[in-house]
């Protein structure tokens, strides 16, 4: 899911920085409009730590393996804080472990952060059914978690499939990109369930955390 340095053309990397800049500006503006913007910083900070370590948790999906992303969960629980949280998490992953890269930081942040914002909007739709309804929290939690990762996987697929360098064996690379995208299908369901469980847990023990 994390695209490393040297894979994408420079124009895509620059465009990624532009879109992630716009998304950061939008998120910070929305956070600034909140009454007490600092109140959610501890929650955002802890979930950034969770996002940071999630990429080390590998799940074998033969013939390959995929790792947790949790961008849908961050979107559902953090709301507008999700994008800066993902950006910071990705920066540390790139600097510390070469997981992703600094030239592709903007692309990766857009790829995972924008679907996180969409997951937040999906999770907010539970209001239509009723805020107190447990099954609405569960259902929209699942949809948010699954959609967050699903859209991110689709963006990654679109970016990679359209930028295969001509000097490679294009057919082999295309086949392996398809295989990797398909391997994310079980993870999409898994992250959906995980997000639903976390949302239900928070709804029961500390519902004000889900107020955003």
């Amino acid at each position, binding site marked *: 899911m994390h695209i490393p340095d*040297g*894979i994408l053309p420079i124009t895509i990397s620059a465009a990624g920085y532009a879109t992630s800049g716009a998304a950061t500006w939008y998120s910070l503006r929305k956070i600034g409009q909140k009454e007490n913007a600092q109140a959610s910083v*501890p929650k955002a900070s802890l979930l950034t730590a969770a996002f940071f370590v999630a990429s080390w948790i590998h799940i074998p999906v033969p013939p390959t*393996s995929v790792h947790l992303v949790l961008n849908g969960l961050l979107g559902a629980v953090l709301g507008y804080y999700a994008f800066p949280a993902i950006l910071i998490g990705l920066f540390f992953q790139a600097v*510390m*472990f*070469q997981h992703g890269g600094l030239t592709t930081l903007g692309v990766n942040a857009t790829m995972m952060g924008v679907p996180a914002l969409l997951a937040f909007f999906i999770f907010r739709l539970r209001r239509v059914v009723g805020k107190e309804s447990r099954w609405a929290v569960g259902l929209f939690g699942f949809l948010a978690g699954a959609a967050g990762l699903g859209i991110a996987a689709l963006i990654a697929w679109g970016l990679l499939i359209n930028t295969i360098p001509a000097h490679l*064996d294009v057919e082999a690379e295309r086949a392996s990109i398809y295989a990797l995208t398909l391997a994310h299908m079980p993870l999409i369901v898994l992250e959906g369930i995980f997000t639903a469980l976390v949302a239900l847990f928070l709804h029961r023990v500390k519902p004000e955390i889900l107020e955003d």
Partner: protein
Amino acid sequence: MKWKWLVLPMSLMLLLALTTTASAHGAKIEYTISMAVEIVATYDTGSPMTGGQVTVYAPDDPATPWLEGVCDEEGRFVFTPDPTKPGTWDVQVRQAGHGDMIHIPIGEDVATTGGGGYSTFQIVLMSTCVIWGFVGTALFFSRNRREYAHS
């Protein structure tokens, strides 16, 4: 003088023998010592990048691929760099948009082994530091909130 009759066949046999010698035993071996570079590409789970596509870039032209190939079952790939091109050779391995690039110095300063990545201990230590940074941030801001609540 019967032996005179033998001169012709003898000469023919000698000629035949000489030419046969020249064609069958005229082997020559020359040698030059060249250095082969073996790379092993693995994912961070430890599994090999089987079938990963390898692109080698020579130091004089880092934009045009010098050699292309594919990793074997164990993620291995061997190539012999051109000794007339000393400098840093770049080798990229890519599969499904994932991969890495390694920079191999060839020439006067040759490192016989090398690679990227950290040991498990380093990774655990670095992760702990970063996580503590996040937890500390959380604690700091929750302390401020409690103070606001009391005032």
